[in-house]
């Protein structure tokens, strides 16, 4: 029986087959569906951790205690989790421990396109790179074996197209392993300098063993066809290369890409007249291959940014542009927008009307508050930085005696991820910043996952909600404003009061995301009275996709409107009214 599944679904299946028992992850496109599919496999404990560092540490702890364990995240998540990764590589593991990183070439839903293969080299850990769904299953099993055999964490690197493409797979019988019995091993698991000095030497030995493994890994294979052209490739790029190069091309297909099988590569290089190294993003393999004195064609022709596809590769190899039949018409951009009824709208609309404010934002649906017509953000860099960039800006403005009101803005999931330390920083180091949490009671950007503020765990258990108010108070904030962003008057008043507040204060803007399935949302419909509408366009400034202009007057699309009344509240001529559904 064959199943048609995405790479992420296949990874979930592979984790089950490899008998993983503990998994911890933080959502992030394109990795999120891995853990959303784990509920199919009852024996695996799985959770959303507050952030990737926590997830990695939880999984590592489980490995030390004797069961196979996994942590999963998007590429930038590994930046957050890098600290435990680098030292776990020194200490080694208990039972197998795999860290899955899903990279996002072309930044379909990311703030950068970092190539996480470099982490394998930097942290000195072995790495697998699957290219399709079947390999996701098969390589995971091998990855856990390698982790146990060489006593080291393994990096499992996916990309958007591997995670989100579907292909046919076959299952294997799942393993049923005994846990390793636990016994305290301070020399191995206490990373103090004296132990680390020893681990450092052991790690180099492990890498030598891994380099030998690489030469014989079942996932590093030569497909010899002709003697003219040889191609070395890995991951998703491999499939593109296979499609583009002619039939008599020989391939060295690498699934285990750190450490590289340099002898195999050398032999392969010698067996062909021209050698290509085809990689997506950075010249990760190419640089190592060249450093070993092997000549090849790579990034001198293949683009080093953005996702690769067969057309781009063909153009790169031939130097000729492939004609595409451009029609004499232009598509207008269709940028993502805050949903009709989105709770973030009221907050950003209110701030968009203020002068002399700085709004340091963060990553989440609310980053769209920076797009027109709201255009109410000054910055956004990485999760948690909403509070802390604001802090730095405040200190800089103080240097010049400049008076500005500075808001640090982030969402609920982001608050628990890495906002709390920023809240402490602002308070303790006396920052002239108003921290704001846009609490829509869910992790929305990645498709509505639970977080410590929602009251549910990933496995569907009810949990005690972690109170942001209590955290702010415990940190020392004296005044905590609570406001419903859909009430624009209240929103305005709260901003006014917070600006003049003499004590350290924080604002919690709270209303659930309209896409949360669990909640019964009130639905209504707002309509425009065309006779009363004076065409002032004020209602367009809220940026709701349901509001548009037709024949010179405002119109509301009844199929889109959910009746949140934000547009109605901004109309100066009472031309919009609410009809109960």
């Amino acid at each position, binding site marked *: 029986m064959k199943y048609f599944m995405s790479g992420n679904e296949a990874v979930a299946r592979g984790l089950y087959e490899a008998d993983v028992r503990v998994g911890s992850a933080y959502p992030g496109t394109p990795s999120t569906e891995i853990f959303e599919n784990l509920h199919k496999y009852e024996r695996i404990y799985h959770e959303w951790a507050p952030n990737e560092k926590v997830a990695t540490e939880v999984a590592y702890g489980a490995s030390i205690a004797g069961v196979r364990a996994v942590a999963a995240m998007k590429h930038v998540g590994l930046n957050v989790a890098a600290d435990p990764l680098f030292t776990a590589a020194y200490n080694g593991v208990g039972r197998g421990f795999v860290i899955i990183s899903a990279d996002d070439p072309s930044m*379909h839903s990311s703030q950068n396109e970092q190539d996480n293969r470099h982490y394998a080299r930097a942290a000195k850990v072995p790495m697998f790179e699957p290219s399709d769904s079947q390999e996701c299953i098969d390589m995971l099993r091998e990855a856990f074996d390698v982790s146990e055999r060489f006593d080291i964490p393994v990096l499992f690197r996916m990309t958007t197209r591997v995670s*989100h493409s*579907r292909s046919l797979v076959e299952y294997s019988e799942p393993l049923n392993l005994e846990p390793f019995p636990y016994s305290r091993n301070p020399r191995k698991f206490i990373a103090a300098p004296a132990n680390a000095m020893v681990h450092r030497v052991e790690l180099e030995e492990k890498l030598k063993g891994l380099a030998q493994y690489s030469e014989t890994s079942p996932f590093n294979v030569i497909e010899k066809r002709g003697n003219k052209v040889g191609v070395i490739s890995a991951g998703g790029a491999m499939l*593109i290369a296979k499609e583009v190069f002619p039939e008599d091309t020989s391939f060295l297909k690498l699934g285990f890409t750190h450490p590289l099988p340099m002898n195999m590569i050398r032999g392969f290089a010698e067996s062909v007249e021209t050698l290509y190294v085809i990689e997506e993003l950075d010249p990760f393999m190419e640089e190592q291959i060249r450093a070993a004195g092997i000549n090849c064609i790579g990034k001198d022709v293949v683009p080093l940014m953005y996702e690769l596809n*067969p057309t781009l590769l063909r153009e790169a190899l031939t130097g000729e542009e492939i004609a*595409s039949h451009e029609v004499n018409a232009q598509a207008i951009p269709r940028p993502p927008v805050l949903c009709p009824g*989105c709770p973030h709208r009221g907050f950003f609309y209110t701030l968009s009307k203020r002068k002399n404010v700085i709004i340091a934002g963060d990553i989440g649906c609310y980053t769209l508050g920076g797009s027109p017509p709201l255009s109410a953000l000054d910055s956004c860099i990485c999760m948690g930085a909403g509070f802390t960039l604001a802090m730095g800006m405040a200190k800089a403005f103080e240097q010049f005696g400049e008076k500005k009101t500075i808001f640090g803005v982030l969402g609920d999931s982001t608050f628990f991820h890495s906002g709390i330390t920023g809240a402490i920083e602002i308070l303790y180091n006396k920052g002239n910043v108003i921290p704001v949490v846009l609490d829509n009671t869910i992790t929305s950007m990645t498709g*509505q996952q639970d977080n410590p503020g929602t009251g549910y765990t990933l496995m569907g258990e009810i949990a005690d909600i972690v109170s942001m108010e209590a955290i702010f108070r415990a940190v020392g904030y004296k005044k905590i404003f609570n406001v419903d962003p859909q009430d624009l008057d209240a929103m305005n008043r709260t901003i006014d009061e917070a600006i003049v507040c003499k004590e350290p204060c924080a604002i919690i803007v709270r209303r659930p995301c309209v896409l949360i399935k669990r909640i019964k949302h009130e639905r209504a419909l707002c309509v425009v009275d065309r006779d009363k509408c004076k065409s002032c*366009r004020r209602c367009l400034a809220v940026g709701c996709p349901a509001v*548009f202009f037709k024949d010179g007057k405002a119109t509301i699309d009844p199929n889109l409107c959910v009746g949140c009344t934000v547009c109605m509240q901004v109309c100066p001529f009472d031309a919009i009214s609410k009809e109960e559904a």
Partner: protein
Amino acid sequence: MNNDVRTIVLAGVGGQGTILVSRVLTTALIDAGYDVKMSEIHGMAQRGGSVSTTVRYGKKVESPLVGKGAADILVAFEQMEAVRSTPVLKKDGIIIVNDYKIMPLPVASGKAEYPDNYIEELSKVFRVIAFNAGQAAIELGNARVMNIILLGAMVEAFEMGRLDWDSALEKQVPPRYLDINRKAFELGRSMARADNK
């Protein structure tokens, strides 16, 4: 080289039902014994962005995605999305386009205008089958089967009629909507046939 591999691109706006179409399509192809790969770009969680799905099938498919100038057929659920995706088509590619407009934000807010000549311009370069599938769906009794009408039209235009579509629909559509979806599928086929004459 995989000369026998065919590529179908579905393009639309979030929430238009491209997912069901891709499920029915891939089910029929897999049942017919093809190797199939599919790749989707679904943008962000927010509604209203462009979405596109690539389905490739043949004896053996390597890459799940294609670049420009490579697809055989484009099924666009909305006019502007047809225009956005045309670079992906081969020279003799076919476009099935829903004669329907969804205003992007720059148009809704009056910053841009939605052109009226899209279908005309597309037809100058490609073989285009255009009709209002949404209206046809409403007339059939359920606005949501617009997607399956488009699938039917594609099957007709791309001469894929010998696949077992009935069984694919049965596997992917909830039983209580099966009947109307079957009708929608047949309607789509007949609309494409009419267009061909």
